[in-house]
């Protein structure tokens, strides 16, 4: 069975490279396996439908919907105004504000693209108006957008948690410290550059202005508090938190800020369902293919093989980082995640690596992949918003990868950065 599956995987990979949609190539591979293995083919559609019959996965459409509602109301400009009032008076103030706004928005949205397209649009415009070159504005926006799925809530973490059978609540908590470290590392880099390039700064607005900016953004800033407060207090699960936060986003737009047009809701829902369809088509087919892989005992073979081949867990993690960074350059994050989870997670388990730490390493690598050319979704989005070519965007992002890679190295080498909070609050 291992030989059959290996051949099928090779053909599947070829089909993927010649442009067969990923979900279709996975589905065909699953059907090919059951046909060659003499297993009744009804198992494939059964596994496909059952994969979506999952409670944790409910968070996916709800977090996407919440992000869409937040982006279409006046929440983003209030957050950016508050961030500017907080740190705009530092040298290179709008760069710092850009990063801070991304951190705050990360606590409400679970996607780097939502961050780049939502608050990023405001950030890039404000920075260009103040004389920053479009490349710098777009590069900082893209780099800070990767914080979005690291600080919870996080769509990639939901998909990872479901696919690799890891606690989503644990992954959410594990993302807090690395997310803040990413912001800190990016801000340190801005501080360096701001001095060298003599970047502009705003005068300190005064505590009164700061208070006014806070008051304007207060209800929006409460979103992460409600999300985390509810989860930690045991009022709702991370999945249910997505539902509660969506209702809260609607409440903000319709009742508190009154800037959300209810007529736009159907369009937002259809966009949300479309994105959900793209995600779930892959998750469902990956589940069927994953079942075929486990029946053929490939994960059980791959794990010990990696242990024999690599020897040390640290070397394995370094190899995983290099592999994921390279794959992330050429493949969309979700696709890379679903393809590599069944191969790499059993190996990580065989090495005794904490599944939550490994999940964070996995997700962070692929988020860095969203800002690396030639296939970097966030790069595409930000270059379009900033009105610059993809080539110049690709050049501009290079220095901003360094702080993110430094954080990746830190969470790889020092597990407590990711495992401390889940152990403290959940005992995991």
């Amino acid at each position, binding site marked *: 069975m291992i030989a059959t599956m290996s051949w099928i995987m090779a053909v599947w990979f070829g089909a993927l490279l010649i442009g067969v949609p990923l979900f279709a190539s996975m589905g065909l591979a699953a059907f090919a396996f059951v046909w060659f293995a003499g297993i009744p*083919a009804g198992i494939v*559609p059964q596994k496909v439908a059952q994969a979506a019959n999952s409670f944790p996965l409910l968070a996916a459409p709800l977090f996407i919907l919440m992000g869409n509602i937040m982006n279409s109301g006046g929440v983003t400009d209030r957050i950016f105004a508050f961030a500017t009032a907080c740190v705009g008076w530092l040298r290179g103030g709008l760069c710092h504000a850009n990063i801070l706004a991304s951190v705050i928005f990360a606590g409400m949205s679970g996607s780097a693209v939502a961050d780049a397209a939502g608050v990023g649009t405001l950030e890039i415009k404000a920075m260009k108006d103040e004389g920053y070159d479009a490349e710098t504005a777009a590069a900082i926006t893209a780099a800070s957008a990767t914080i979005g799925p690291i600080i919870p809530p996080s769509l990639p973490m939901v998909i990872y948690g479901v696919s690799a059978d890891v606690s989503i609540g644990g992954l959410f908590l594990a993302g807090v410290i690395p997310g803040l470290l990413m912001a800190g590392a990016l801000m340190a880099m801005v501080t360096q550059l701001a001095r060298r390039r003599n970047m502009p700064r705003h005068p300190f607005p005064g505590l009164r202005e700061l208070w006014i900016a806070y008051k304007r953004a207060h209800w929006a800033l409460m979103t992460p508090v409600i999300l985390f407060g509810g989860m930690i207090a045991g009022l709702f699960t991370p999945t249910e938190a997505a539902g509660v936060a969506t209702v809260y986003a609607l409440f903000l737009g319709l009742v508190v800020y009154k800037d959300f047009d209810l007529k736009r809701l159907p369009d937002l829902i259809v966009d949300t*369902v479309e994105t*959900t369809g*793209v995600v779930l088509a892959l998750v469902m087919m990956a589940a069927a293919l994953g079942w075929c892989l486990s029946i053929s005992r490939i994960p059980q073979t791959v794990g010990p093989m990696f242990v024999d081949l690599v020897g040390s867990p640290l070397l394995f993690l370094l190899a995983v980082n290099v592999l994921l960074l390279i794959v992330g350059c050429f493949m969309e994050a979700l696709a890379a995640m679903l393809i590599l989870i069944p191969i790499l997670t059993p190996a990580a388990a065989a090495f005794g690596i904490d599944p939550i730490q490994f999940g964070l390493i996995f997700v962070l690598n692929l988020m860095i992949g969203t800002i690396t050319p030639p296939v970097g979704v966030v790069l595409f989005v930000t270059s379009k918003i900033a009105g610059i070519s993809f080539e110049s965007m690709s050049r501009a992002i290079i220095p901003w990868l360094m702080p993110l890679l430094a954080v990746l190295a830190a969470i790889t080498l020092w597990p407590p950065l990711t495992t401390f909070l889940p152990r403290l609050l959940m005992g995991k």
Partner: protein
Amino acid sequence: MPQFAATLDRLIRLAAVALLLALLICVVTGVVSRLLNRPVVWSDEAAQYLLVWTGFVGWMIASRRRSHIRINVFIDMLPRPLRLTMEVVIQLAVIVLAVQMIRWGWPLLGRNWDIEWVTLPLSSALLYLPVPFAAAVLIGQALVEIGLAFQGRLAQEPEPGAQPL
């Protein structure tokens, strides 16, 4: 034909809005009823079934809007006639998958019709109901793409950033 496609799109759109709103209401009902110490038992199971249907409806929308993830970097380098031929081959592969999904998905309905949900008197076969519909939309869209290829045209790719993460 365009009228049929427009009607189909409208129906899919209606289904998407109804399903996601129902899903949201189910999840929130679960939380609120628990907070009020009157927990309902059906909310989780209903929300999960609604997610399966939402996923398949989203699958149909993504097919119609051509936003399913695929790697075009390499085949876009091919000369135009070869690129068009490859598109036909790719779409035929999609049709093969969709036919298999209908062929093996349809019997699941009959096999599960007598089995009820745990919390509600509804059939478990509802879980598999959207499979043939989604597969039918896949076939229809693949035929559209093949038709375009025979006219020497390629469908426009979705905007970068339409991808989910």
